[in-house]
Structure formats: structure tokens, C-alpha cells
């Protein structure tokens, strides 16, 4: 039985490898990737860091998770750029979202860390407790929602305007759809994007809507179908979801989930893909278009230097394109439509000038719900037991995402986007 199982597994793996090689063959003839239109900026220290300064990091997993790897890489980049020694940067990995997080935070504070940072949403309430127990240490938490109302001066939240990055990636997707329409591969009404999402939370909905709007800004007939997996990392589910979407008519794909499931399904099916949190070009050279990601280095630099200078860290910080918190990979010229780079660079310039808003509710035929333009929307910005909608999010003709709180709160389903399942 064991022997049979072993043989069977070997056979499956061999077949798997063969399909991988067949689909992702080497691509030496192609034009390859452009330079990134929005690279991570160089880190330049603005203040001398004393030798006794220490910062502690708490990560939910280790480098094997793409989510944590994004934080760990940024922490290492800042460590190197600011010339911090191994003793000055303490990283605790695989810390669960329980009292383990509280203990780790207290331990780091007691070891002399001036700043303690934690990376997972579920760490938040324990970080808040630790902040109350150690008022002389700064506690910073990514993706959380409590700092702006908690009134604990040494507790802070941070996020990034990643919806701007997704909008830019969406432009590349929209131009690719236009190319398909011009070539006659599809008709304009068949311009369907697929999207593999993890959960139906605001963070995911904000991301998929901004991708959709980026595409719609150049390809007005685009529609989107969304399949949720109910997990942040499930390679098989993500691959299945992507395949289901392709079968449902999606001619282009994007995702917000952490595995290679969706990109590799696209490579096998030859469907162009906008990925997230880093380039998948090496694995999928035929179909990868572009990828957006959050760069945490500017925030880490900010909290380290603020602590050294004795300046207050903002309670709720949201980095954008200007701060270098939103980055793009290069664009794959073998897959993307001509002129993509130029269009993205133009939009970046507009973002920098402040003239472009992703969730622009004043534009005609752009954001509608049940055929109506959006003029008012109460968002749930302040955390409370009853999930009360407490803040008017629309001002000056756009939905002010991440302005009243860094963590996303856009949770509307707009016309043109269809959820194939929504149980998560």
C-alpha cells in the first residue's frame, strides 16, 4: 500500500513538473520586464541612531509566508540602510494571535526596545494591552483599526493606500482588454475580469474595486466576477477559484490571496494576470502583467527615527505613493498591451499632483450602485460592538478611502462587479 502510494505520488509530481515546464518554458526571445514605474525609494537616514537603540518585531509566521516575508524584507532593508546591528533589531517569528503576542511584546519592551511592531490583524488587541502595560515604549501595529479611537498615546496603527497601486495595475489590465477587443479576440461586452479574493472584508473589497476602476478608466465596458476562497493562503482553493472564473468567461485575472494558485492557473490557461505582493514573472512569463505591493520600509524608518528624535509617532498613519509605501513591479512587455508603461506613468503623475481620485463618485458612468451615482455613504470607521456605520465617507466628489482611518473601509458592491460566492 505504502509502495503504491509512493509510486502514485512520484507519478503525480513528475506530471506536475512536466506541465510546469511545458507551460512556463524559458522565454529568452521575449522583451521581458520594463523598469518599475513606481520602485521602492532608496532609504536615506535623517538622524544618527544611537548604539543602544533597539526595535522589536513580532511576525505571525516566518519568511515562508509571502505576507510576513513582505514585512521581514522591509525590516531587513531598513536595518541595512540605517546601519543597525543584529542586537538592535530583534525579530520574533511565529507568534500566535493570543497572549503569546502580549508576552512577546512585553518581553521586547523589557529587553530595551524603544519601538515594538506587530504585523498581523489579530495581534491588535494584545498589542493594545501591552501598550497600556508599558507606557514608555511605542507599540505599532499594521492593518489595525483601534488606535485612532483608543486614546492610548503610545499605541499606533499603520497601513498604505494600496488601492492606488491596485488602480495603477488595473490600468494595465484595462489596456490589455482593449487590445483583445481591437484584435477581435473578444467583443467589448465580453471584457470580463476574474478576481480571486480571500474574504469579503473591506480590505479585499476595496482592493478589487480599485483594480476594477483602474481597468474601467481605460476600458468602459469591463465587468468583474469575483470568487472568494475563505482563506488567506490556500494554493488549491485559489487555483480552483481561478479555473472556475476562467470557465465562467473571465479573460483576465487578478487576485488578493497569498499563494501562487491563481497565477499558475492563469499561466496554464494562457490568461493574463495582475498579481499582488510581488512579481510572479519568473514562474509565469507568458501571462504576468504587473503587480502592486505595500512597501513597509518607509513606515519602519519613520517609527525608528521618530523614537530616536523623541517625536510623536502618528496614531494612525497611511503611506501613499508620495511616501514610497505603494510600489509596482515592472510591466511584462511580452504580455501587456503597448503603451501600458506610459499610461501608468501618467496616472502616477496625477496621483502625485493630487488630481486623481480612485473612488471618484462625480464622474459619469464610473461608480454606480443600482444604477445610481453615489452621493452619500456612511462607513464603519470607528470600531464598536454593534458595527455602527459612523462616518460620512464621501466628500468633494470622491469616497475618501483610508483618510479617516488607515485600514480600508470601502465595502460597497458597485455595478459591474458580481460576487459568484459571498459566504466568506
Amino acid at each position, binding site marked *: 500500500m505504502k509502495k503504491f502510494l509512493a509510486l502514485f505520488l512520484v507519478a503525480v509530481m513528475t506530471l506536475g513538473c512536466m506541465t510546469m515546464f511545458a507551460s512556463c518554458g524559458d522565454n529568452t526571445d521575449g522583451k521581458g520586464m520594463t523598469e518599475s514605474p513606481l520602485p521602492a525609494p532608496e532609504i536615506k537616514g535623517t538622524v544618527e541612531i544611537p548604539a543602544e537603540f533597539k526595535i522589536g518585531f513580532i511576525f505571525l509566521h516566518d519568511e515562508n509566508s509571502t505576507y510576513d516575508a513582505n514585512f521581514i524584507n522591509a525590516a531587513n532593508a531598513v536595518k541595512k540602510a540605517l546601519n543597525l546591528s543584529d542586537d538592535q533589531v530583534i525579530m520574533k517569528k511565529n507568534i500566535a494571535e493570543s*497572549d503569546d503576542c502580549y508576552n512577546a511584546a512585553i518581553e521586547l519592551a523589557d529587553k530595551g526596545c524603544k519601538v515594538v511592531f506587530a504585523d498581523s490583524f489579530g495581534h491588535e488587541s494584545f498589542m493594545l494591552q501591552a501598550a497600556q502595560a508599558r507606557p514608555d515604549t511605542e507599540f505599532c501595529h499594521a492593518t489595525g483599526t483601534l488606535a485612532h479611537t483608543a486614546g492610548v498615546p503610545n499605541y499606533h496603527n499603520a497601513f498604505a493606500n494600496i488601492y492606488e497601486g491596485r488602480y495603477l495595475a488595473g490600468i494595465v489590465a484595462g489596456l490589455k482588454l482593449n487590445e483583445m477587443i481591437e484584435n477581435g479576440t473578444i467583443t467589448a461586452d465580453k471584457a470580463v475580469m476574474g478576481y480571486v479574493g480571500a474574504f469579503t*472584508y473591506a480590505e479585499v473589497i476595496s482592493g478589487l474595486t480599485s483594480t476594477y476602476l483602474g481597468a474601467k478608466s481605460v476600458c468602459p465596458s469591463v465587468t468583474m466576477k469575483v470568487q472568494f476562497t475563505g482563506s488567506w493562503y490556500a494554493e488549491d482553493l485559489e487555483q480552483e477559484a481561478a479555473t472556475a472564473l476562467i470557465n465562467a468567461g473571465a479573460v483576465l485575472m487578478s487576485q488578493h490571496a497569498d499563494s501562487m494558485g491563481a497565477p499558475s492557473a492563469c499561466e496554464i490557461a494562457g490568461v493574463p494576470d495582475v498579481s499582488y505582493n510581488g512579481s510572479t514573472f519568473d514562474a509565469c512569463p507568458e501571462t504576468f502583467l504587473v503587480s502592486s505591493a505595500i512597501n513597509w520600509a518607509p513606515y519602519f524608518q519613520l517609527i525608528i527615527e521618530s523614537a530616536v528624535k523623541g517625536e510623536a509617532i502618528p496614531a494612525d498613519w497611511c503611506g501613499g505613493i508620495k511616501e514610497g509605501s505603494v510600489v509596482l513591479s515592472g510591466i511584462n512587455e511580452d504580455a501587456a498591451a503597448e503603451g501600458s508603461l506610459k499610461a501608468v506613468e501618467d496616472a502616477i503623475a496625477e496621483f502625485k499632483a493630487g488630481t486623481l481620485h480612485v473612488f471618484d463618485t462625480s464622474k459619469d458612468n464610473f461608480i454606480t450602485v443600482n444604477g445610481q451615482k453615489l452621493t452619500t455613504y456612511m462607513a464603519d470607521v470607528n470600531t464598536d*460592538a454593534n458595527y455602527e456605520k459612523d462616518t460620512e465617507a464621501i466628500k468633494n466628489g470622491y469616497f475618501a478611502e483610508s483618510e479617516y482611518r488607515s485600514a480600508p473601509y470601502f465595502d460597497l458592491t458597485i455595478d459591474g462587479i458580481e460576487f459568484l460566492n459571498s459566504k466568506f
Partner: protein
Amino acid sequence: MKNPKNKEQNAEVREPLIHITKRDMSTVKRSITVRAIAILAALVLAGIATMLLTKNNPIKVYASFFEGAFGSSTQVWSTMKNLALLLGISLAITPAYRMRFWNTGAEGQVLIGCLATAFMMWKFNTSIESGSMPEWLLILLMLVVAVVSGIIWGVIPAIFKAQWGTNETLFTLMMNYVAIQLIEYFLKVADRSGSNTVGPTILRHGWLPEFGISRYLIGIIVVALLTVFMYIYLRYSKHGYEIAVVGESENTARYIGISVKKVIIRTMALSGALCGLMGFLIVAGNTHSIDPDLVAGRGFTAIMVSWLAKFNPLYMLLTSFLLVFLSQGATEVSTSFGLNDDYSEIVTGIILFFIIGCEFFLNYEVHINRSRLAAIFGRKPAADEAEKEAE
């Protein structure tokens, strides 16, 4: 060896190079020596592995091990807490294993206790805040509901086993997944922000008092009392005797008039109740939060603790301490030397290999046949002589 000339020669020729006999009993001195050698050998091997893999000074690495477990008061409390959790769950499953009931569902039985506790905290948050319910009543309610749910989770497979002889290993194992899924469902209902955990900002009341010392204090005391109780229960009570008899032979038990069904169900009810109690202590005392990974595999590690200690609660204290010390220490090593968690798992693996391996030398004696050994190393004449002598 065909057609042996006589019996004697047959015996001589068949004698293997190495043969193993069961020891009657190891003396205390012997068992301590063998175990100490095993731990020492394991530490040396782990040190060599560390040195080769990381080029770090092994002495520094060992120092860091102690630092991880006893470096600061936070770490000492954390070690004590983890020790109490592992020991408590091991104690809870011990009566069942003593009875040779393969309960692989301790994880789920503890989790369902956690869920029951968290559910009550969530449900009565507002009653406490409006003052319509005193805090002590909530804590009592949490305790009762947690213990009852633990009993239900333990007794269901026990009834099936007692009545219809179903396989308890698979049954209890599957009950774990039911508990995990129920917690997943609770997370969705109790916290709509999409967190993977429901934390102290939502479960605001029903926390066990800290007495200004540590939130882990009550849990540690309860587990200490439980250790004494379990020692007496298994050793000196009639129930303990019945459990031992059923474990050795169900037929004997029937013959001397023990109701096997009753003992199975009663023992699993006790196991389940104690698991439920541990779940209550975890949520109400330690974490004030719930997620499906809260027990972190301790329900399975407990099986090893219980068996390694041969169901003796006092030895279980030592084995669980060793495991907790190892995991805390190895985590510290990976943090201070920039390694990831895989390293701590390698070290724990090496040490466990030796600890479990040394049990073999305690239970069995190894005899090496010197004349065969000599024959192998090329002293053939001697072997021939031996053969002639036999003739």
C-alpha cells in the same frame, strides 16, 4: 543449518550476534543514569548540529536556551503557564490511556471548552456592563458550561465504543475537526471585522482574577491540585483500579464483575470534563481570546507526555517540563541567532529521539554474543573451535 546433527549444535549455530531480552524491572538508579546519559548525549549532538549549521558557539546557544525559559519574569511565567497547560491536558487524558482508550480528541475536547467559555463571555458582555449580572456568576457559568461541553465531546465517542465497539481513535480524531469548525463559525459571528481571532476587546468580562501577581496564577494552582488528585485517583481509588484492570484485559474485568461499559463511559466523562476545565482556564485565565489554533497541538503532545511518564502524574510533571523548556529555549535561540522556527523543531526532534530511544534500554537488555563477534572480526579458528566443542 539444514539437518542439524543434534539439538545442542542447532542452538549454538542459531545464536545471533545480538539478542535482546526484556528486563524485569529497572532500578531507580539505573533509570536515572540512563535518562541522564540520553539527555546529555542529545544536548551534545544538538550542539554539534548547531555549530555545524550555524557556526555559532554552542555554549552561547545553550545559554540562550536557559535565557528563553528563565531569562526574565515574563519568561518564567510564560514557561510556568505552558507547563501548566501541557501538564493539565496530559493529566486529563491519562485515565483514558490507562484504560487503553486511544483518545486522540483531547485537542477538540479542550477547544470545545474554550469555545463554551468564550461564547458565554461574548453572550453576557452587555449584562455585566449594565450591571444585571455579577462577574462571579458569569465566571461560574463559564466554568460549568465549559466542563459540560468537554464531557459531551468526550462521552459521545465513549458511548459508541462501549455500545457498538466503534474505533475510538478515528472517532475522537474527527470530533477535533467539528470543534475547530464550530470555532471558525463563532469567529464569523462574534467579530465581523474579519479577524482570525476574537480577542480581549470583545471578550471583555469573565476574566479570572490576577491577585496582582499574574493572570496565569490560578491556572497553575489548579493544575498543581489536579496533579495530586490524579495521582491519588489512579493509585488509591476503586475507580483507578477498575481503569487499570479494564486497560490490561477487558475479559478479566468482566470476569471479576466490573461493568466495562460503565467504566469506559465514566472515565471518558472525567477526561472530557478535565479537558473542558483546561479550555476554561485557557480562555478565562490566559488569553481572553479564542482562535482555532489556541491549543496549538498540545492535545497530541499530551499523549506523548502521558506515555513517556507511564501514566505517573509525578513523572508527567518532569516530561512536560522538559518539552516546554525545549520549545521555549529553542524559540529564543532562533530569535537571537536569526534562525527560523525550523531550527527549534530540529533541536526538539533530536532530544526527543534520545529520550524516547533510551526507554528501549530501560525496558530491554542487549546481549552481544562475543564468540560470534570474534568470528566476524576474522578470528575464524576460534569460531571453529567453539563449534567443535559443541560437537
